[in-house]
């Protein structure tokens, strides 16, 4: 098991999440992820992975325990602070969650517009990020006009424009074929190399085993394994 480190980017202390009447989605989870790490969070369906992600982005509050992002205690984060948290902890999902009536460029620009960035800055940043994820030529298309892999790239671009400290990827390859899936994982590795902490939530055995990075395994809401260079053990 990994030990607590004072340089934790993500820190969970005895975090439990109990849904009524008495369903324990997370059961006294404690884990610490350092800045710049690439961690896979694995486990079967219904094991608490998504609940953990929701707690990390402030969509859920833990019933017990403490969550910190860097030095920021987000355990009881207020509704008004959530937009600021989302700019530090970006998230991508299996279903991409792109705005269907905006082009890929506009989807990415939207994330900066809500943060109040100037139009000039948006015009300089967005094309760069789109190029980085390999969408330079297709950025003015609507989500329905590109493939699933390209939609996920756009979602990653949108997550990156804030230059977040953490990128949570919740089953990002779930809707993709193996080639597209590997391209997305390669892109996540590239982002990690630039210094962003990446937490990959998945139950794709092949991807986890090929990564050869830290693997945290959840089962019934509890951490049952945490290996520095791990494998999918379930």
């Amino acid at each position, binding site marked *: 098991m990994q030990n607590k480190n004072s340089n934790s980017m993500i820190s969970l202390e005895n975090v439990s999440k109990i849904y009524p009447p008495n369903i324990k989605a997370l059961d006294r989870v404690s884990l610490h992820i350092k800045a710049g790490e690439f961690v896979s969070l694995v486990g079967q369906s219904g094991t608490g992975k998504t609940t953990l992600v929701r707690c990390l*982005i402030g*969509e859920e509050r833990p019933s017990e325990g403490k969550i910190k992002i860097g030095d920021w205690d987000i355990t009881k984060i207020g*509704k*008004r602070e*959530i*937009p*600021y948290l*989302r*700019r530090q902890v970006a*998230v991508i999902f299996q279903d991409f*969650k*792109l*705005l*269907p*009536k*905006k082009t890929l460029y506009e989807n990415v620009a*939207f*994330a900066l*517009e*809500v*943060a*109040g960035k*100037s*139009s000039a800055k948006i015009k300089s940043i967005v094309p760069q990020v789109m190029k980085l994820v390999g969408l330079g030529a297709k950025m003015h298309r609507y989500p329905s006009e590109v493939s699933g892999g390209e939609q996920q790239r756009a979602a990653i671009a*949108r997550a990156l424009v*804030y230059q977040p400290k953490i990128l949570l990827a919740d089953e990002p390859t779930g809707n993709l074929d193996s080639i597209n899936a590997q391209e997305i994982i390669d892109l996540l590795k590239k982002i990690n190399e630039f210094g962003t902490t990446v937490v990959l939530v998945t139950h794709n055995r092949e991807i986890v085993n090929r990564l050869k990075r830290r693997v945290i395994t959840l089962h019934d809401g509890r951490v049952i394994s945490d290996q520095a260079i791990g494998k999918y053990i379930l």
Partner: protein
Amino acid sequence: MFIALLRAIKFSLQDIARNVWLSIVTVIILILAFFSINLLLSVQVISDAAIDTVRDKIDVSMYMKAEAQESEILALRAQISALNNVREVIYVSKQQALEDFQTQHKNDPDILEALRELDSNPLSASLVIRPQDVNHYDSLIADLNRISSPIIESRNFEDHKLMLEKINTITERVNQAGFAVSLLFIFITLLVLYNTIRVAIYTHRSEIGIMRLVGASDWFIRAPFIVSSIIYTLIGIILTAGLFYLFLNLLQPYLETFFMNYDFNIINYFSENFLQFFSLQFLGGVLINIIASLVAVRKYSNV
């Protein structure tokens, strides 16, 4: 703040254009709602005008003795004209009364024949008194009854009083029913407006969730919807005004026939009150749309 407002307007215009069918349907429902309100308003205006027309025709007549001299009648007319609540007093001479009678019975040869057999004019001169305000009819009758003049032959006002009471009762009931129907109608319209905006926002529920996800604040999510609802209401009210004037133009000739000899023009009425009517409807529409936007966005932004 200024940039955020400009962006809210940009997103709103983008959304209206890219969801053009939803926008068209929303505006059509708003037009139907506003048109219904204006229709109800015009029914109210027409019924008020019809009641006024009937009231305007209420008068009382005072009949003079056959031997009364015209100078005496005119003196009496002046005396009555000086009374409070008298709008006008019309002197109908014996000759005028005869001519009116003949015109009235021109299709009845028996009556005209009987009239010819009489050597002299059997009709009396009279004074037709029109009240300033029919609501003070009782005091006018009392004043008229107090006038003592030897040339007055008869002054029976009771029939008129009964008729007036009936008209007043009908007017009161029409107004009460109109008020109740108006309230009901306004309530239904408000519900329709409220629901239209909620449905429009319902179709954006997943997008609202995504906006929240990428860090949009409450204000940033709500503002474009509020701007859109203001734009929808503005377009709705402008188109309603245009269509309604078209409708009034078609209606006016029928009203002219109905209100013959009475100065009533519904187009003028709406033109004179244009700003008051349509700005109030616009403000009401905007207010209800903003409330609907706030409620709906709040509901769908909890992702």
